[in-house]
């Protein structure tokens, strides 16, 4: 698919999931930013395919489950590192959050480590977040109390 066609596809995805405002935010840089986001999506898909031997198709998610697509195409998710984005995709597919370790100290590099569990009961990870933007995944987990304990589940869109 040509670059203009891919830009059109991404633009449509952003607009259909409520993130169309990004295009205005980017303004005259929109074309360059769309290319950057597309390159990041390609890097994510390639690494995912390498690890799991199947190709993720974010644009197909728009028709398959637009509510999950909304979470995937939000600005927070678009900024994630490849490792964190793979973690998000695995949760969208149905993995559960098994363990999160997060260390923050002002002025230092943050450390985020997330373990998942597949529906088959197998552990996955750790998925590691090092860059500042990776912190943002923590804002998208659903939270529920079960037997007076916190359970984090799912990856959902912010407003």
């Amino acid at each position, binding site marked *: 698919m040509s670059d203009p066609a891919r830009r059109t596809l991404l633009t449509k995805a952003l607009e259909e999931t*409520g993130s169309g405002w990004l295009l205005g935010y980017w303004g005259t840089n929109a074309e360059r930013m769309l290319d950057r986001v597309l390159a990041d999506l390609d890097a994510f898909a390639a690494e995912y395919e390498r690890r799991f031997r199947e190709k993720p198709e974010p644009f197909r998610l728009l028709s398959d489950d637009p*509510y999950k697509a909304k979470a995937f195409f939000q600005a927070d998710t678009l900024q994630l590192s490849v490792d964190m984005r793979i973690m998000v995709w695995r949760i969208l*597919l*149905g993995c559960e959050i098994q363990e999160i370790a997060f260390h923050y100290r002002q002025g230092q590099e943050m450390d985020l480590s997330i373990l998942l569990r597949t529906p088959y009961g197998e552990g996955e990870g750790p998925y590691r977040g090092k860059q500042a933007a990776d912190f943002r995944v923590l804002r998208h987990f*659903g939270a*529920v109390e079960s037997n007076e304990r916190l359970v984090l589940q*799912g990856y959902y869109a912010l407003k």
Partner: protein
Amino acid sequence: MIGGTDLICPVRSDIPISDVIFRVVRRHWPRYVFQNADESGPFTPHAGPWLPRPSGREFFVYRDEESARSWEEHGAIPEILGTMLYVILPAERSLLVPVATSVTLVCGELTGETGEVVQEIQGTFRDSIESLSSCFVPFPLEAA
């Protein structure tokens, strides 16, 4: 006729509602099976462990295949009332503008494990409503 308890649960319109329900159910009923409400004929449990995707607005979730078959055979008898959840998703959902909508859950008495399942689903829905007020946080994607 199911009987039991009808609950109207507020939820945000732009989250994958069935995803929330199946994740909670899966923790409590790991052998759960799912059925679209418009499916007729022999009961066919959801195949595979990944989260199912309902084809319509209404669906049933049973604790296990045995419960599903009992429901099919006997209907709502007291012995199995607490083994099924009937879900009715909102008729209209706004994806682009998140608003509060509601899901209807129909189940047996709100006690025991069924009560916990429903309470946790409601808790997650409530959490989604509260995040309606989540504020905009600046981010480093380049602006014009």
